[in-house]
């Protein structure tokens, strides 16, 4: 940077190019006004009434989970409150954010269960409890068309596979499924395989009666249920008809078997839950390598990981299915090729948004309460909570403040003051561009504290220039010429600013990671303005000064340059170079 042949012009050009790109992106978004916060512009209010009579503890917990969901990224600045004994209110900035209703109200009760029967357990299964093998085989033959056609149509149930060897797994997996009818012709093979694989991985550590976590049954019990569904449950399955879409959810009791449907209307009889959503340690969404559709990847805590490995080990190689049940609906059912000791993937017909929303909801856990989707949820538009004159007053104040700051800098630093003014203007333009960009991409909203924060950031931004200029003047007082003083002063001012801004960045980072709600929003704004401060300082102010130092007006110490002998308080300044 401080090389002799530094090219300030080039740095400046690159800087403006980047700035132009930022504004180009903003222009693509086509919005030239930032999204304002709840307090200034109002937004959407979603009111949700919980089913039943939840305890206040459960309501509090639900409130904080919903808070984490809507403020997951930290910049949305939504407000979540409880009201009365059973209502939760979510205020979200921006008009018509009805799209969030589902994300907010979803219970996100995730459970893993084994599939005992699909569509119906065949009549033989009830009688042939001695011969467990017939259950999967006959079960397979009935839904064979369904199971085989589903992957072909590409939709709701694809794979449950490894993270890493996903591609290979998937290929085999499809082949396997396609071959289902033929392979199930030999029922005895599957029957003998299933119990033995189930026994080998999980028999030793914890046998039947020790559940992995409360409410769940052990994998062994689930496998037993799967291979040999009791008659009363299969009768229930036969009697069950899939409800119309969007109607009331099935009561999902983890310790009981479950009869439910998936989105395409296939009925399932499922074993008691073997893994609960609470075992999920992290959830992410994305398109896997070699994959086509969006998937949600789940990581488990150690107990869940073990249960998942045992369960996949038990059904590995058989045609038995593993179902992922969300809020009582099967969202994905899949076979496993081998024991999977890692993370699980849920695939279905997700879009990017729905995959991201599901991952987000799973990450923050299930709500302890559920909401009546039909009558319990309403949304309306709300107005700003602050009087209209607050925004204009804030902007006026900011304008006056900025003007005074510029005036002061011009008076005190004269010619250099112009650089300060220029830098502040460029910083303002950059901040505005970033705010526009972020309100488009990350739902960043500007509320009144945010605006005040940006105004305060003016002071911190200007401070870097002041540190720099004072250093230059100090160097010149030591008898260096301006051009030398600029470089020497830069080296020192740079370290000071890096250290001081490092503290600010550290604060922003840590508060963002640990904070919640408004604290996160603040941390984000602080980090943004500090980063912009550094960028401006390095890539605008310094090159500009370097460039100006070639002009006689500055390096000869013109009376108005702010670097003349009188301004420095010395008798005469050194005029460098070929003077």
């Amino acid at each position, binding site marked *: 940077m401080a090389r002799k042949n530094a090219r300030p012009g080039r740095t400046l050009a690159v800087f403006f190019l980047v700035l132009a790109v930022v504004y180009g992106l903003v222009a693509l978004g086509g919005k030239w006004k930032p999204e304002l916060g709840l307090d200034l512009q109002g937004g959407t209010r979603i009111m949700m009434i919980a089913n039943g009579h939840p305890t206040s503890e459960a309501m509090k917990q639900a409130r904080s989970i919903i808070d984490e969901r809507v403020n997951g990224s930290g910049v949305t600045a939504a407000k979540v409150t409880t009201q009365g004994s059973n209502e939760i209110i979510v205020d979200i900035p921006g008009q018509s954010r009805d799209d969030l209703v589902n994300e907010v109200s979803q219970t996100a009760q995730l459970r893993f269960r084994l599939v005992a029967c699909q569509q119906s357990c065949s009549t033989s299964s009830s009688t042939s409890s001695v011969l467990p093998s017939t259950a999967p085989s006959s079960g397979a033959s009935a839904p064979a068309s369904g199971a085989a056609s589903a992957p072909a149509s590409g939709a709701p149930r694809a794979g449950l596979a490894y993270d890493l060897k996903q591609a290979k797994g998937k290929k085999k997996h499809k082949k396997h499924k396609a071959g289902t009818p033929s392979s199930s012709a030999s029922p005895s093979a599957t029957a003998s395989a299933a119990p033995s694989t189930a026994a080998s991985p999980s028999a030793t550590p914890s046998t039947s009666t020790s559940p992995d976590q409360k409410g769940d049954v052990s994998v062994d019990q689930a496998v037993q249920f799967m291979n040999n569904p009791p008659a009363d449950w299969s009768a229930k399955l036969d009697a069950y008809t899939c409800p119309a879409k969007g109607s009331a959810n099935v009561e999902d009791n983890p310790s009981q078997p479950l009869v439910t449907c998936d989105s395409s209307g296939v009925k399932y009889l499922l074993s008691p839950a073997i893994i609960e959503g609470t075992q999920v340690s992290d959830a992410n969404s994305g398109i896997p390598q070699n994959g086509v559709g969006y998937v949600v990847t789940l990581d488990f805590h150690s107990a869940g990981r073990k249960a998942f490995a045992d369960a996949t080990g038990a059904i590995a190689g058989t045609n038995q299915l593993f179902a992922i049940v969300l809020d009582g609906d099967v969202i994905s059912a899949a076979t496993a090729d081998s024991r999977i000791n890692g993370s699980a993937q849920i695939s279905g017909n997700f879009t990017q948004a729905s995959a991201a929303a599901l991952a987000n909801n799973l990450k923050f856990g299930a709500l302890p309460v559920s909401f009546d989707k039909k009558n319990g949820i309403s949304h*309306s538009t709300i107005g700003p909570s602050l009087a209209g004159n607050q925004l204009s007053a804030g902007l006026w*104040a*900011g304008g006056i403040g900025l003007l005074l700051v510029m005036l002061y800098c011009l008076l005190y630093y004269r010619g250099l003051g112009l650089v300060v003014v220029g830098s502040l203007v460029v910083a303002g333009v950059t901040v505005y561009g970033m705010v526009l960009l972020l309100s488009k991409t990350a739902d960043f909203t500007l509320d009144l504290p945010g605006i005040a924060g940006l105004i305060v950031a003016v002071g911190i931004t200007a401070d870097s220039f002041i540190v720099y200029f004072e250093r230059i003047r100090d160097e010149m007082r030591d008898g260096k010429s301006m051009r030398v003083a600029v470089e020497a002063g830069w080296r020192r001012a740079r370290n000071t600013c890096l250290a001081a801004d490092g503290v600010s960045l550290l604060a922003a980072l840590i508060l963002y990671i640990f904070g919640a709600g408004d604290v996160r929003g603040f941390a984000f704004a602080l980090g943004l303005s500090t980063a912009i401060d550094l960028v401006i300082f390095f890539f605008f102010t310094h090159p500009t000064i370097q460039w100006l130092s070639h002009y006689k007006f500055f390096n000869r110490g013109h009376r108005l340059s702010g670097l003349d002998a009188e301004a420095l308080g010395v008798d005469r300044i050194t005029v460098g170079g070929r003077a």
Partner: protein
Amino acid sequence: MSKFTRLGNSLYTGEKSIDFVGRKWTWYAISAVIIIAAILGLSLKGLNMGLEFTGGTQYTVTVSGTASQKVADSVRTAVGGSGVKAASDPTVTTSGAHNLIIQIKSVSQAENTTVLKAITDTTHVSAKNVSQDHVGASWGKEVATKAIQGLVVFLVAVMLFIAMYTRQWKMSVAALVALAHDVVITVGVYALSGFEVTPATVTGFLTILGFSLYDTVVVFDKIKENTKNLRATKRSYADAANLAVNQTLVRSINTSIVALIPVAAILWVSAVQLGTSTLKDLALALFVGMAAGTYSSIFIATPLFVQLKSGEKEVLDAERRARRARQADPYANVPAFVEGMEVEDDGIPAELREGEETTAPHGFRTRPNTDAMGRGRTAPPARGPVRESGSSGRRQPTRQPRSKRGK
């Protein structure tokens, strides 16, 4: 202006110097008084926590006409002016086309009636069109707990950061003490003024935290630079630190002016134009905190740091060296007669008339000798034989003439 810039130079050279480090007890006493006042205020009056922390009562009003922003504003003024303390800063929003939502902190039955009356009078609806409900805190305990957790981690990290950057853990201790000083003062001002603590205020506190540390690091960076080479400069640690503060003084003044002007503008505009408002609360916190932040990094952090350092061997060595350097040439500062020097009739130079300068520790000290030849000065006898310098006998580097150097 020019006087101020002159000051800048004389502060830089050390010609003029304010004894920040030496008069530490004065500064400590001033801060102690302020802090005691703040703590008293805090314990006696307590903080006025806002609706977001405490929860409260919500009124939903169905107005006869449309619920416009104007109606909301007038209700806000009416409820705020109803004289009920818990309702002094209500949140009023429109909801849908015909509803108004008014949120205030929990009130007693009598106060409830007053507020209700203020609402019904302004909106011209009967009391049965107003429904009441309890709202919970949006800033519940867990948010606060998380924020505090983050804060603790941040403070530990920042201590490590400063200690690593400056290589002196005592600097991080001093910086943290200064930080605590600022935060206590700001919180005290809140308690004393009775302003409501809202999430915006918390944001303000965090800003102060950042600013205070930022400012302290800038000052400490200069101290670090000045004290790097004490052996050569023959200064004591305290003197070097004091010089550093004096050298950054102009920056500190400028920075505080530049940082405080916008905040002051917000404070002024909001106080004059708006009366009670979020903006005013926030601006007050920022103004007090930032002023305290600049003050504490000069008057608290630096003296404290020097005091913490004072027992260290290096520092004591530097002090001994500095004392010896001062004694080596006791006449160094005696003025020499030069042509055109002002000499008064009674023979006493003008500088000596100022009483204060003659009270310096070494008899009288005046301006340093500026004569280039060192005339008028009797050099003391050498303390030992002159030794050969380290470079003697070694081959010295040579430099070819420009024409031979190529290019």
